[in-house]
């Protein structure tokens, strides 16, 4: 089999799917790309058995055929080859020879019949959304996903579909993000949990524009299609916690602050916090917010005060500063509203302004204050 392909285009396409591949896998063939050539079309597939990504591109070819090519060596060589047409020659023993203007490179491929089969998209339900909507939904939720393998349901983002909205929810049991879009319409009310890795890959493979994305799912898998790029992944087979019951319906105390000022203050003060908790205590009274962190053993202390608008009784409540900083990143407005009730109950963070089609709600549990 022989085909000719542009080196830079091939590299660009492979970079979208290369992240699927793990190094030193138990099954060596999982370190390969599967190349499938059919009538001037090249399809390349990468898989880790959980997530599969494929791209398709135009090439020059007279024959059809398949081969597995070791991913790492191919990527390393493509990165160093200046833009030009490359000729791939594959013989019966799956030996791959690449010819460029600069010279010839050889690598042993593997039998494509050993490459794992992809899940088939049977019984799927589909809906569409824009690339930017999906990328935004991932960016605003993925950071709050749990790393705790003992609670698998929380190691992914929960997608809740409805006729007039899509809602993405992520939590690690200490904090929670709910991102809602009303410009997405799904055929029926449904839900599934998507693991972290495929979402990370989608985030970098998808453009941040108005391109249309098709999402299809069945009981086990999610299939995402954007033009010639496709991804499928296994869904997390677990029950997402009943998060609705933990969202306080009415936190009476409300504080509004400038987001960037609040975030910078948290960054500065948390340098002096106890590193096992990152605890920063917020003391709000009148129109003043005080931030305080300390580590008794090392005699570290950080204190700042800033202006805020506050409607409520004086309160002192402590949070993990890292949680607050990350959550503030997910708020796009100039100001944020922090809604509180007592020092041991969840606080709510909301941007003060949002597009009509979007809604973000973030919850964070406090730290018990040391006496």
């Amino acid at each position, binding site marked *: 089999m022989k085909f000719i392909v542009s080196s830079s285009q091939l590299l660009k396409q492979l970079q979208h799917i290369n992240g699927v591949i793990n190094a030193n896998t138990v099954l060596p063939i999982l370190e390969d790309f599967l190349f499938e050539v059919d009538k001037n079309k090249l399809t390349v597939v990468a898989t880790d058995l959980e997530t599969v990504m494929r791209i398709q591109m135009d090439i020059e070819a007279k024959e059809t055929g398949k081969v597995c090519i070791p991913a790492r060596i191919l990527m390393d060589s493509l990165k160093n080859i200046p833009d030009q047409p490359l000729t791939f020659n594959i013989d019966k023993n799956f030996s791959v020879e690449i010819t460029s203007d600069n010279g010839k490179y050889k690598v042993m491929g593997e039998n494509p019949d050993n490459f794992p089969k992809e899940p088939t998209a049977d019984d799927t339900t589909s809906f569409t959304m824009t690339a930017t909507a999906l990328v935004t939904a991932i960016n605003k939720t993925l950071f709050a996903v749990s*790393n705790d393998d003992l609670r698998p349901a929380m190691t992914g983002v929960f997608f809740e579909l409805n006729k007039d909205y899509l809602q993405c929810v992520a939590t690690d049991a*200490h904090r*929670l993000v709910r991102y809602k879009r009303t410009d997405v319409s799904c055929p029926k009310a449904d839900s599934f949990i998507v693991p972290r890795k495929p979402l990370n890959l989608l985030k970098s493979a998808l453009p941040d524009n108005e391109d249309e994305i098709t999402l299809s799912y069945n009981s086990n898998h999610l299939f995402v299609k954007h033009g010639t790029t496709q991804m499928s992944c296994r869904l997390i087979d677990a029950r997402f916690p009943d998060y609705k019951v933990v969202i306080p319906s009415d936190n009476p105390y409300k504080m509004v602050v400038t987001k960037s000022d609040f975030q910078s203050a948290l960054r500065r003060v948390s340098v002096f916090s*106890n590193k096992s908790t990152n*605890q920063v205590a917020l003391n709000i009274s009148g129109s003043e917010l005080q931030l305080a962190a300390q580590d008794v053993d090392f005699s570290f202390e950080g204190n700042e005060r800033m202006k805020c608008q506050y409607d409520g009784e004086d309160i002192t409540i402590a949070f993990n500063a890292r949680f607050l900083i990350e959550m503030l990143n997910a708020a796009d407005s100039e100001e944020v509203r922090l809604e509180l009730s007592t020092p041991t109950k969840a606080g709510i963070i909301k941007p003060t302004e949002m597009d009509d089609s979007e809604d973000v709600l973030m919850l964070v549990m406090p730290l018990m204050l040391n006496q």
Partner: protein
Amino acid sequence: MEETPKVLRKIIHIDMDAFYASVEQRDNPDLRGKPIAVGGSPQGRGGVVATASYEARKFGVRSAMPSKRAIQLCPAIIFVKPRFEAYKEVSRQVRAIFERYTDIIEPLSLDEAYLDVTIDKQGIGSAIDIATAIKGAIRNELGLTASAGISINKFIAKIASDMHKPDGITFIGPSRIERFVSDLPVEKFHGVGKVTAEKMKNLGLHTGGDIKKLSEQELRKHFGKAGSFYYKIVRGIDNRPVEPEQETKSIGAEDTFPYDLTKLEEMELALEKITETVCRRLDKHNLKGKTITVKIKYSDFKIITRSKSFSDCLNDHNSILAAARELLEKTEPEGAKIRLLGITISNFPSLLSKGNGKCAPGQLNLF
């Protein structure tokens, strides 16, 4: 590259005071307030003192001293036969107390341990308070005393625990470390015995401050690899982690054959049988590892091992066998005379990631 931990750690070194002797005095009221020595009695040949009570220490009796010498120094001394089972039991009770405050415990012996309390399990707030609580629990629940040293690394914590013995507590914070180490006599340094101390003194090195004047190269020239360790330690740098002992580090099986194997098929068959045993043992312990090691012993008793690590766990018969075969084949075994083959799986990920999943103390949960 010299890796410095991103976070300042909080390490406590706990040292039970005159452990064996204190347990004996606790369990036998007749011995209280008296000079006693746990160890071999002077009647036997070459008996030595394992531990002397503080009453005996006043006379100059020390651990590892010949019992005969102890009697010369302190004629009233009472010798007690050691009861190691009893000490082990008390040691377990002490450990149970540690476990209330941290999961990262490295026992050095029955009476000494390092604790990493950077993660404040109970949310007590400060390492000094944790150490005080531990000492209190040991006194109230076990009727014994311990000394604690608190600092940001093992080296300083250990020296600190020795500073106010018995029943002492000593904290050396980061700002005090440099000066503290500078004033420290060389024989107090971890790993510096009589011989090295003598050598250091001959070189005019009497304190940490003296060592600090030398470059790492010079120290290496005089003391070899230990030189680098001294170089760092006099600057208060000791990144050794507190290493809890793991229950299981590896699981494996091996087989010695009635005759030497020379054919590849025979070897592969043997590997298959060994793989089965390994899988059964892994299942039994509910473990999966990322590293496989194949051991080969030849007819001349020469032993080689070959290993490979994977990003994910080897968890079934087929993947273990495939990896074992690949490793074996790399040794060009056809024609070699092989007496024994073994497969070991190690690098169990659960223990490594244990610390990450844990949340900070005091952090409240949504569900």
